């Protein structure tokens, strides 16, 4: 049986999603995995919806993850997380949300009649609950980047740490760290590796506090007599 893993990373332009995806994919290749990645870019360089889709498995052919097919959705911004999660997450998939919510442009933020007073993140969680997607973890990625690592720009590395810390990605920590060193621009290797490690650590701690989740059975594809 071939294991297949579908991962979506979502957030906003300027958050380093493309770089995080490229690093993780490079590490997977280095660890001998068959992998494809496809980015969806925003039209502007800052604060517009951006995502990337990573598929690992011997038989993956399409560059796109089907609706409701992602085993893991990682969001660098929570509202984008809700959007990506509702479209892509499997019913039993895991969703990791950075707890920051970008304030939307004023004209769009007119409260609608019947809006509850719930905070944005609570509303987002309610959205997942209504969709019956239960495994949603709120993760303080920005907080770790800003206060533990000392640079908010390392958010993508912190979130990458959380992603790898789920143990769902068939990649070795050391490989990822090495790739981060190699691909980090302009001498940011050290701080990026530190941020990655901080992300791994915080996610593991949080998982322990919240109770160890049961071993995750990855989706399987039928064995195939021929390749693509």
């Amino acid at each position, binding site marked *: 049986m071939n294991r297949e893993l579908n991962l979506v990373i979502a957030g906003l332009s300027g958050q380093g999603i493309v770089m995080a995806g490229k690093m993780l994919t490079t590490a997977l290749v280095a660890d001998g995995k068959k992998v494809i990645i496809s980015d969806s870019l925003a039209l502007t*360089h800052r*604060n517009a919806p951006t995502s990337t889709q990573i598929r690992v498995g011997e038989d993956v052919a399409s560059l796109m993850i089907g609706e409701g097919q992602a085993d893991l959705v990682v969001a660098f911004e929570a509202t984008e997380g809700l959007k990506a999660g509702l479209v892509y997450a499997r019913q039993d998939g895991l969703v990791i949300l950075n707890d920051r919510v*970008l304030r939307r442009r004023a004209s769009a933020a007119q409260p609608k009649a019947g809006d509850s007073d719930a905070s944005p993140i609570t509303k987002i969680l309610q959205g997942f609950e209504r969709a019956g997607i239960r495994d949603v973890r709120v993760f303080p990625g920005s907080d770790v980047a800003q206060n533990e690592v000392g640079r908010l720009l390392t958010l993508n590395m912190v979130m990458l740490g959380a992603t790898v810390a789920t143990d769902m990605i068939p990649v070795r920590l050391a490989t990822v760290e090495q790739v981060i060193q190699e691909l980090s621009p302009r001498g940011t290797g050290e701080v990026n590796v530190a941020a990655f490690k901080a992300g791994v650590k915080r996610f593991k701690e949080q998982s322990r506090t919240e109770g160890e989740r049961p071993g995750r059975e990855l989706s399987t594809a039928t064995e195939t007599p021929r390749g693509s």
Partner: protein
Amino acid sequence: MVGDTKTAKTTTDVEQYAAPTFMKYSSPDIAKDAAGETVLLSGNEALARGCIEAGVRVATCYPGSPMHYTLHNLVEAARIYPSMHVEWSVNEKCAFEVALGATLTGVRAMTTFKNVGLDVALNAVVCSALDFSPDGLVLIVNDDPDMSATQVAEDIRALAIYSSIPVLEPSTMQEAKDFTAAAFELSEKLHLPVLVRAMYRHGYAREPVVLGRIQHEVRERTPHYRAEQLSHPQIEGHGLHSGPSRWAHAHFHGEVPPPQSQLAKGWATREEAEKAAECFEGNKLTISGQSRVGVISSGLAYRETMEALKNLGWPEEVATLKLAITYPLPRGLIERLLHETETVLVVEEIEPIIENQVRSISAGMDSHAEILGKLTADVPFSGELASHQIGPALAKLIGQEYGAPASAERMRQRQEILQSSVPGGGVGGQCPGCPGPAAAYALKNVSEQLGMADDMRFFSYDGCCGGVPTGERAPGLCMGAGINLAAGLYHAGLKGKQVVLSGDSNFFHGCMSGLVEAVYNKSDVLFYVMDNRTTAMTGHQPHPGGFGITAAGDLTKTLDIAEIARACQADFVATVDPYDQEQISEALKQALTTKGVSVVVSQRTCAVVAQRQKGAADALIFDVRSQVNRDKCLSWAVEMSPCEAACPAHIDVEAYVRAIAKGRFKEALQIVRENNPFASVCGRVCHHPCETDCKRGKLDEPLAINHLKRFVADYEFSNGLEKPTPVPRTREGRVAIVGSGPAGLTAAYHLVNRGYGVTVFEASDVAGGMLTVGIPEFILPQKMVQAEIGHIRDLGVEIKTGVAVGKDLTLDSIWKQGYKAIFIGVGACTSKELGVPGEDSPGVLHGVTFLRDVNLGNEVKLGKRVAVIGGGDVAIDAARCAVRLGCEVSILYRRSRAEMPARDEEIETVEAEGVRIEYLVTPAEILSQNGRVAGLKCTRMELGEPDASGRRQPIPVQGSEFEMDVDTVIPAIGQSPDLSLLAEGSGIETTDAGTLIVDPTTLATTRPGVFAGGDVRTGPATVIEAIADGNKAAASIDGYLRGEDPVEGRGGEAAALPVTGADTLPQGTLARERQRVLELPADKRIRSFDEVKLGFTEQEAIAEARRCLRCKICRRCVEDFACVAIVTEDGHPTVDQNMCAGCKVCIQVCPYGNIEEVEAGK
């Protein structure tokens, strides 16, 4: 070559700008000699690597997503191999022609752009193939089925076929590299350009790729001009067609007779191309003995087909043919598949290019295979193909079910949740500090101030500035089109200065000839270039107007857009800084008022580049931030705008005016109706204290609020009233309303909306009270009144006419019928007596009675000469009716014009209609003769000391008596309520003036459960005051029936409320004339009862609504200035400190100076 002329880089700005910041999809390792190594490559990298391995010498590109990253990679290669020339071309035609020119020397060249780029270069592309038969020329073009980065989902293969250019379609990244390298070989073999069709998604996807050998020897070929390839046969005269195209074309199709053919060595032939297609290595047929169904696909569609087949468990019956070359088709492989299967499904992106060729092959052979695809609706034309679209079609063919991986129902539910949980839109927009919105705001502001905004149309084609000023995307068509489209509008005779928005790169790309066209042919346009000094949206590629560097990072000249415009002799040219709103506004004012071609260059470096130039990527451009002063900002600090406060019913005028300004008329009416069910009535008869207090009045003239209200009501009326659905009864108690005037019906309207059962008792045979019987048709047409009453009735209010409480019913009997509360709104309909002799003569008609009879069409006996006594609305209205009935009319008023209760406007109107007003005159006796009025004895008056009402008391002048020759007298000196409904011991107390005593806050009478309002409380007053009482009473009755404290929280209902903070005028607001409504001319209107005032047109209403100064919810910063950092908190503007770039434009935008500079981090 270029390498020799490389100059040292000097300035820091350029260095920062040229630094390799494009690492996402390009890599410095792309050109390394590492054959056999497996690396992760994006499509862009793979395509570039293919070029590098093939030894490309010249590579050109105009930026367009995603193909420009291919060139970024070649820039990296050129750093290592200096013989390479890599350039950002000015446009695609330049790019293609430069590459074509290079191949004439025997080196390999490549040009790349997106689908629409091929359109720009098409003229040269079409001619190149057969005229030049170039060797080693490759075009890499991407199609974009989802239109992710283009305005059209065209299929470039159609254009390639049209140009006789072979097309290769890679599927994987490995193929992207391999096919590109092979394309150069193929081009040299066939003497044709070869096109590699990548898809948009290829550009930004990555896969492991095995690298190949770099053909250094090919790259380092010595260029020599290959004239023989171009030496076309020329046969002159004798009627023979001379010219190269004919021979090349004939030769291509194998039709050139000898001896010409010998001249055509090195030219392309179709036969060679078809042969090459047959044996092109990437084609792959997988077929077995069990195959019944064949699938033909290419590119990414092939990957989706494989995904679908995987989900179907790799069915044995399906054979697959993957096409690497899709023009010409490998005929042999297609024929074999058609022979060996029963059904063939063609799966391809966008147009049925393969499908049509397969159908044509099938038609020429003995095949019975059924061909399915787009033309049979088995594969969609539009959008990016996905496995879930192909799977079901395949499954059907082999009799299987295609199990959807996720239930469609569940995904639909999720979509619904998504719609309701995510704040709509709102993200994206420009980056913080972007100069675009600042430039756009200035244009919007200036054009509105000059009153030119309504006649402006925008054309735009540019990534980062597209559509900002209008809030919606301006039509673009294609790059460079805007200025010509605008000129077309002008030459067609359309009014107004047309505005063309362009970016800087777009200017060089396609606008310069349009600029010359506009100047030469004398068009009237504003050409507004938003110059951020880089091709920003596609990733900050340099261009001729940028920092003076080339793709390779060499220093070059910088071309100044304004200088070019001056050289083109534009009528007005200025370069301005959008961060300086005063400067840019001044330039725009001049530009907009200069006839002819104005060019304004708004120049400021893209904020993202500015950040990079400053150093670390997270450094912001400036060290300051903006913040909204919440103590002063109108939105935070002002509770009510002056108009809303002045209105007795406190209608949210600003909100409905804003809705009108945006053309949302229905929404505006909804807002009026929250506090007033009589928009149409009020819009005609209200005395509009809102306009008196309107802040705009301090500047020029108040907003025409009343006419706006009337407009939205009329708009609904003339567009077909939607009958409202009755409100379901959700409350126990039933409420009785006595009197169907504005007070009673307003109370009924709110109570029925709150779920109560409501019955209105009306003594008269018609509902509406004074609205129906007291206001003449030419002021308030009855159809409008009846429409609004009908609306209230349709909501579920029961109106019983002809039931006089006090006669047919008593208050006690109403209680006994089970009503839980009563509202008395019987008005003030009893005319006051003059108290002079002769008042009972025939020929004396009291004002309200007269108006009532006229309105109801009853017989009215008027003489020839009428004297109306009084100075209020009833007197004026009665006089105007009498004029229309053919009488000579005078109004007698005992004080002077200054004290007259009628408004100036009314006095002017009545005088224009020929009514004479006698001031300081009072009747002393009505004379009669033969049982009819025969004259009026009057006394002249003079003004004494002010009385209790503050008005000066009239005092008779001794010996001033005189007689007037009149035959009809209409006293209209006031009315009082008819309180005959109050039986003895009703428990309801009255004032000396004959009105009811009620609590001023709750309108409760002295009897529990009985409330009263309108004229019965106040004496004769205005419609809006009656409506305000209706609002108040409904709230009180609701509270009473719920058993709540009726007084608590009612402070906001006082008739006039204090207003704070709304008195300053916004800076820079120019006077703008109030829109006038048309009126019937006086000589016409006195001959009929037709409505005198004609109301606003849609356009006038919007123009008038835009005069509103927005005293409460100013929101200029959030609505007019599209800065991403200005967000709202509880609906009020605030600056998100994490986003603010410190450009300080919003500080200049706020007309009240309520956005302030703060230190970063505070």
